[in-house]
């Protein structure tokens, strides 16, 4: 305990030091053991993607088959269907869901502080805290033939007779992406609002004296000063393009829309746990993770370049 301020004392022997730190080590080591069991063992378990794993095997006893599973995956048309659906939904989400919180945050920021602003924030954060199962149940109700969306469309004479939108495969990508935006756009403003609160108000005052209007202030002060946080979020969103929302797919999928609603994670679930083809499902998951890492890396590179150039 004496070497508390660490670093300045002469180096003591490792064992002696370790034993004197035993109370602290005994706090950290359970965490390390946990990580080895629950994080590193499954990472090692990824090796079954290169093996032929059967129910009686352990991770290491399964027979090595090299890239055999990956070759089958590449020829599997349902795998490509899941890829297309995941990318389609993700792109719609990126297109709408990425700018939405930025615009919404700017709009909220423009409100004067007070009860109205607080109420707007409370309401818009709320959907984030609903589970996807709850929201899925709600969506099924809203989009059903007797739901309120059909009701509104009928009253506006946009449709002749009620449609159950979730049984309509063509509508699925839109329902999946827009419901995600509906759920997360409000909560997404939190970080942006915090960044905007940190902007020096004298910038705006100076701009106003120079005759800059509201829009001009947003485009010349607010947005440029938020560039870092926006690019960080952009990198994270792009690297997540292949991440599918499993909870959402599980609850909204039905036999009528499956061709459009099967995403990668639900496909892994179905192949691995429903059909018991563990090696194959692991190969799908591993392949997709590797592509995700490449996406993260390239998104990071691209944003760095763009940012550098726009500085000058």
């Amino acid at each position: 305990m004496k070497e508390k301020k660490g670093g300045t004392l002469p180096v003591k022997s490792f064992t002696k030091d370790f034993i004197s730190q035993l109370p602290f080590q005994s706090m950290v080591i359970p965490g390390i053991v946990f990580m080895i069991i629950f994080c590193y063992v499954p990472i090692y378990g990824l090796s079954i993607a290169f093996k032929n794993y059967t129910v009686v095997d352990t991770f290491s006893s399964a027979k090595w088959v090299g890239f055999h599973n990956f070759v089958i995956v590449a020829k599997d048309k349902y795998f490509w269907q899941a890829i297309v659906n995941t990318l389609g939904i993700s792109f719609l989400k990126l297109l709408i869901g990425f700018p939405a919180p930025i615009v919404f945050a700017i709009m909220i920021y423009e409100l004067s502080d007070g009860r109205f602003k607080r109420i707007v924030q409370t309401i818009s954060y709320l959907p984030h805290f609903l589970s996807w199962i709850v929201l899925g149940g709600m969506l099924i109700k809203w989009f059903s033939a007797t739901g309120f969306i059909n009701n509104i469309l009928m009253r506006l004479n946009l449709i002749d007779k009620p449609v159950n939108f979730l049984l309509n495969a063509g509508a699925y990508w839109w329902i999946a992406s827009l419901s995600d935006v509906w759920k997360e756009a409000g909560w997404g403003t939190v970080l942006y609002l915090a960044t905007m609160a940190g902007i020096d108000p004298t910038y705006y005052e100076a701009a106003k004296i120079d005759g800059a209007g509201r829009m001009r202030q947003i485009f010349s002060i607010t947005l440029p000063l938020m560039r870092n946080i926006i690019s960080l979020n952009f990198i994270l969103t792009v690297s997540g393009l292949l991440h599918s929302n499993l909870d959402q797919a599980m609850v909204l999928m039905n036999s009528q829309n499956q061709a459009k609603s099967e995403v990668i994670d639900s496909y892994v679930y179905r192949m691995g746990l429903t059909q018991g083809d563990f090696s194959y499902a692991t190969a799908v998951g591993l392949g997709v993770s590797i592509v995700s890492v490449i996406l993260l890396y390239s998104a990071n590179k691209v944003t760095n370049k763009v940012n550098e150039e726009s500085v000058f």
Partner: protein
Amino acid sequence: MNTKIKDNSFYIYINYFFIVLFTIMIIIPLTNVVTSSFAGSRALSEGNFILLPSEWSLDNYRAVLHDTSIWTAFLVSAAKTVLGVVTHVFFCSMVAYGLSKRYLRCRKLYTVMGIITLFFSGGMIPTYLLMKDLHLLNNFWVYIIPQLFSYYDVIILMNFFRQLPDSLEEAAIIDGAGAWRILLTIVMPLSKPALATIALFNGVYQWNDFMTAKLYITTKRALYPLQMKLYEIIVQQQAAAMNSVGSFVVQTTSKGIQLATIVVTTVPILVIYPMLQKHFVSGMMLGSIKE
């Protein structure tokens, strides 16, 4: 901030208009679900209302109250949330307190091991096979043990612990207190804000989590939490509606039960969320500092 808002213009009204519009787009669908759950079966099957049904009834809630499996699920959810949060917060604090000592031997190794877990994971199938080997399938502890630890939360707590004044700990050492006693009687009580935000986020996760049950509770349906029970109700109702199984009356009733279960599942979140909104927002900040 207020100075830039003073100039009155057309722009401000447009802004208010859209903000109100967006807010309504959130409120109306949510209200629709709540009022529908109180609607009578005829109003529900006709579905000709947006906010106020023509016929009110408590039948849906009566049916939910009489369904003991929903009660069991509620208790499982409550138990997994409370126990999960307490053990998670305690376990993470313990590891974080040890790691917060910069002079700790092997600290480099420990942090590298932790950081790797933030970026890589075995994914669904290897994790499932591990749970199977650990005999955690169809076992209540599958909700608790794999959730004990999160390196992300450890980083947040570690940074918080380092901001605490050293003098308090030094005084305790002079009084003869050991590391464990200092953690439990000084460090954790002083870190209530950080512990509270981690507890809140973990609590929401535990309450809303359904995939754990879907993956690992394969036969023992008594261990289903509320979210899984709701999922089951939704799937059954969807299948019945698509295949036109069961009479029209049965279908409408199960739709009503589904709506009432949705409301029951959400009420705990709706009750605590507005009270604790500040902590959620500050917790979001706490987490983002790291990035």
